[in-house]
């Protein structure tokens, strides 16, 4: 029997069509109904205008889009034979604001998505405190805004650098926001120090803790989420950052990955209009995002959880929380490396002299984000965007399911809806 | 003599000074010469201008305002950019014909004695009314799609340098024909050089 389920509060809207057999999901397809045509809007625009347009793909990860655009244009410069010099300072600050956006996203996901969602499955409900997520995200946004002017929808990264020239006053202010976030995470989310949390050897360390995260962990275990929601056990990272390297992992065996193998196919859905497309590596579906990144980084606690619980819903949720913890520490570390005396911007050749293609690859909160542009005399001829949700939450056939389709199989519909959320769905990105 | 307002009296002094500077040269002309020409005592003259340098600056402002006023009238007409170029050329040449001392002062005194105009008359300070109107002319020309969008001074230099050169040749009596004779071809040349490519 096919039942349709409307999903909202996922940065937009989606519909899942479940084919239920014997009370469990036999197969499900996903449709994203809304389409905004960003790629066509970009055509024939001045290439630099993309720095303003693409952040508007997404209200929650627009900064990742900005970085993908700036990388794509800088790549086009290189392909056209022009140097683009970036100072160390520029690279660190860009990286820092990107990391803060991921942190912002993860906090919201914990408090506005995953805790409310898990509360639908258990009794008594876990106490819901969605505004904690908004609060933490607003602090992360302040830290971004000191460098980027505002969040969401900043355009402070430009080919050759960043528009801002921060002082020590700014750096100190940002530091205090990061400290405030760490303090919040320790007090409100995990109930112990960040250091202790990151030194966890296994999930046994949660024993005896009373905090938002330990409740969540406990509930996940009670729901047997460590035995459900398995995807393909294949992981993909494409963005090159201080916190990630391009790798694909199959049966725990890592090899380097290259964006040129990314393949876009039409989505398949049961009797529904969808504007989504599927992203594959070669012709294989891989899971992308925090789970893939933490595994490829060999984060001990996530590796340990993974050894026991594979790519279950439990591992997926916990990896995101541990990624958040490592990124908080990483952000502090990045800040300490900023040398404000370095250049914020090095002028590059006028964009009107550029005729070339360029690719920008970034790790966005949910995984790899690709921007592919074709520029002629500084004007965009073609612009393609591939988003993380297209890797994870594509909709394919029963024979060749996407990670989320695989993960929802064999569970009840209610569980499947929760598992769907563990991937952190971004509808607006999917159908840009 | 009928009673004149202070402003009118000032204008009389300016006209007289321009005439004398043009006939005898700027440096040779003295304040007593100018005072004598307008029939006033040297002491009274100082009520109007404190020094020859101040007078020199007032003169350039006077000329700049005169040019600016005339170009503004042209700018505000409904006519085409080509017609406006002709009208500006025509206005400038007529002025060179009818009030040669003004253009002469501008070319011979202002442009070649920068030291006098250093303090308080540098850059755009004294010529602002004139240059502003030329800016408006170029701006409108580009806006209506008739003129090629380029650097202001590249265009300004071409336009005013050309006119200044012709007036100079005219003043040196090198031109075989009267200025009037050149209006049409020069306007065409300027338009051709500046028009949209």
């Amino acid at each position, binding site marked *: 029997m096919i039942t349709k389920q409307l999903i909202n509060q996922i940065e937009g809207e989606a519909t899942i069509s479940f084919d239920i057999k014997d009370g469990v999901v036999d197969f499900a397809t996903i449709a994203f109904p809304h389409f905004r045509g960003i790629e066509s809007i970009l055509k024939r625009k001045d290439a630099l205008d993309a720095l303003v347009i693409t952040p508007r*793909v*997404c209200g929650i990860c627009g900064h990742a889009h900005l970085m993908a655009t700036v990388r794509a244009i800088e790549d086009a410069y290189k392909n056209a034979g022009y140097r683009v010099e970036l100072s160390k300072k520029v690279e660190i600050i860009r990286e820092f604001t990107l990391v803060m956006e991921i942190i912002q996203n993860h906090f919201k996901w914990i408090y506005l998505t995953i805790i409310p969602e898990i509360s639908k499955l258990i009794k008594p409900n876990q106490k819901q405190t969605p505004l904690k997520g908004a609060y933490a995200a607003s602090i992360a946004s302040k830290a971004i*805004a000191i460098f980027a002017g505002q969040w969401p929808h900043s355009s402070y990264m430009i080919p050759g650098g960043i528009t801002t020239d921060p002082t020590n006053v700014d750096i100190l*202010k940002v530091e205090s926001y990061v400290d405030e976030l760490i303090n919040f995470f320790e007090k409100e989310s995990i109930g112990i120090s960040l250091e202790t949390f990151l030194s966890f050897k296994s999930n046994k360390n949660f024993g005896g803790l009373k905090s938002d995260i330990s409740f969540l962990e406990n509930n996940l275990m009670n729901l047997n989420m460590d035995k459900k929601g398995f995807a393909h056990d294949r992981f993909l990272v494409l963005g090159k950052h201080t916190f990630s390297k391009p790798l694909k992992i199959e049966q725990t065996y890592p090899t380097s990955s290259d964006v040129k193998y990314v393949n876009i196919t039409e989505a398949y859905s049961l009797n529904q209009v969808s504007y989504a497309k599927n992203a594959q590596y070669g012709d294989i579906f891989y899971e992308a995002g925090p789970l893939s990144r933490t595994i490829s980084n060999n984060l001990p606690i996530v590796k340990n959880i993974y050894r026991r619980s594979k790519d279950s819903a439990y591992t997926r949720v916990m990896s995101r929380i541990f990624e958040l913890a490592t990124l908080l520490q990483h952000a502090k570390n990045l800040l300490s490396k900023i040398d404000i005396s370095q250049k914020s911007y090095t002028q590059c050749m006028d964009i009107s002299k550029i005729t070339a293609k360029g690719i920008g690859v970034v790790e966005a909160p949910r995984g790899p984000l690709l921007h592919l542009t074709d520029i002629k005399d500084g004007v965009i001829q073609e612009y393609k965007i591939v988003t993380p949700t297209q890797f994870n939450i594509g909709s394919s056939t029963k024979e060749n399911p996407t990670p989320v389709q695989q993960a929802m199989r064999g569970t009840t519909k209610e569980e499947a809806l929760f598992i769907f959320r563990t991937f952190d769905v971004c509808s*607006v990105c999917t159908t840009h | 003599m009928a009673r004149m307002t202070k402003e009118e009296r000032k204008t009389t002094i300016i006209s007289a000074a321009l005439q004398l500077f043009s006939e005898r040269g700027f440096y040779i002309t003295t304040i007593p010469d100018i005072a004598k020409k307008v029939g006033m005592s040297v002491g009274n003259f100082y009520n109007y201008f404190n020094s020859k340098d101040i007078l020199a600056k007032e003169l350039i402002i006077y000329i700049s305002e005169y040019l600016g006023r005339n170009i503004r009238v042209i700018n505000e007409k409904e006519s085409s950019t080509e017609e406006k170029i002709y009208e500006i050329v025509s206005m400038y040449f007529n002025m060179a014909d009818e009030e040669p001392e003004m253009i002469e002062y501008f070319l011979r005194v202002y442009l070649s004695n920068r030291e006098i105009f250093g303090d308080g008359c540098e850059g755009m300070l004294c010529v602002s009314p004139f240059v502003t109107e030329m800016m408006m002319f170029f701006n409108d020309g580009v806006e209506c799609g008739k003129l090629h969008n380029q650097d*202001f001074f590249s265009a300004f230099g071409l336009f005013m340098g050309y006119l200044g050169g012709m007036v100079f040749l005219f003043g040196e009596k090198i031109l075989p024909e009267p200025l009037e004779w050149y209006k049409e071809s020069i306007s065409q040349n300027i338009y051709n050089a500046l028009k949209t490519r």
Partner: protein
Amino acid sequence: MHSKQDKKPSIIWFQGLTCNGNTHSFLNLENLEKLLDKFELLSHPTLPSTQDFKTITDCTLICDIFIFEGTYDPLMKRNNVLVSNIIEHYSKYAKYIIAAGSCASFGGIFRSSAPQRNSGILFVEQEKSGPLLSYERKVINISGCPLHPQWLSYTLNMIEKGNNIEIDSLHRPIELYSNLAHHGCTKNEYFEWKVDTENFGEKEGCLFYKQGCRAPMTHASCNKILWNEVSSKTRVGTPCFGCTEPNFPRSNLFSTKTNMSIPEDVPLGVPKRNYLTITGIAKTFHIKRLEGKLIDYKTTD
């Protein structure tokens, strides 16, 4: 509008074609909880609310304040119901309709993907001919891409207190949009003396002359009510793109359109001739303090 015994005004926040930017911008509001306490949130894209989405699209209830985010597309459906039917229903009964962001106000970025049919809810760019024309007196535009959380919080608080919100001809609250983005810009002195910045990435110099800054032509209080309480685009050397105005997004956003080096657009309300006069004169002066790096200027006189 409400005495203490009255029930809280109810809100439905509904989305058309959007990136969710206004939703996420709103979540940055300081004291969000205090504001939300004053209202009954029937539906919101991310915050917990009392009604499920199906109830909203079924149009079986009404609300006091209807907030619409995103571009209006007459063919768009939410939960298989035409958005045009949904907004007609809620607009009819609501006391106030708020267009959250530039897409809802004027059409914004997503108007350009189908300009012949997409629009704001009351305006199609600056022309008042959107679908909610018959309810125009209720509509308040909080333009901006995204909107500033405090602009929306101001509007909601004013409504809750029963205060009158004066609006401009584009239906934006005067108290928020009579300022220009230029007001309070930390680069103001460079603008006064017409010192343009050599390049991006510098504290010194104004972005109006080459880098395309629209702040002197843009109604917005970005430099008065700071973004995320800490900064603004121009404060970090990014030009203002004029995102609160009906013609956003313009083209060639990082360069100033000039005619023979003369800015095509000059500060609002200033005749170009007067602007050029002042500019020419200001440029004449060379002020050492404004020409070098601020950090190198160590004298205090």
